[in-house]
């Protein structure tokens, strides 16, 4: 087995500082995106409800207006 190589201090410092920077960046971005996604989900759900309501009304109107005796 080859002996372990002595990694330069700059590289070690860089690695671990990037690791912690990355963790901080990931955590902050997650906390930034989370409320926005929830808001968006709420808005989408409301939109869907409205659309469903409109579709229901349209369907009932169409059913009332069609004049077939084959029911």
């Amino acid at each position, binding site marked *: *087995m080859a002996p*372990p*190589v*002595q*990694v*330069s*201090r*700059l*590289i*070690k*410092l*860089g*690695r*671990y500082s*990037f*690791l*912690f*920077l*990355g*963790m*901080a*960046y*990931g*955590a*902050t*971005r*997650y906390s930034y*995106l*989370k409320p*926005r*996604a*929830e808001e968006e989900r709420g808005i989408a759900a409301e939109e869907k409800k409205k659309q469903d309501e409109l579709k229901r009304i349209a369907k009932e109107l169409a059913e009332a207006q069609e004049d077939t005796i084959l029911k």
Partner: protein
Amino acid sequence: MATWAPAPNEPSWSCTQEVMPHSAGRSGRRTFHPRTMAQFIRNLVEKTPALVNAAVTYSKPQLATFWYYAKVELIPPTPAEIPRAIQSLKEIVNSAQTGSFKQLTVKEAVLNGLVATEVLMWFYVGEIIGKRGIIGYDV
């Protein structure tokens, strides 16, 4: 259904029952064909420690070599080493300013590039840890 408890030294199941049908082939390998869910769970519970033991024995030497290298190569820098590291950074910046980096061979430059890329990738590993998900933000 009659309830019975096995004697202290008796296994909780015995081969005389029709519980575990098995076939010993020509090579002597036992194959288990559990018939019900309960037997399957019993099989699993009884075989898991053996499997775990096998996995541990297999991975121990590899773990040992990993630890052997990691103890020297992967430890974070002690606070005493940080000034020396900043010194090397200044040297690099200096060489970029004075143009002495042009004296590097292409092979050295490629190696430096690879090492720099690896150091930069640790940022993304940290981001994965921070956002607690491998692909994408799980909002």
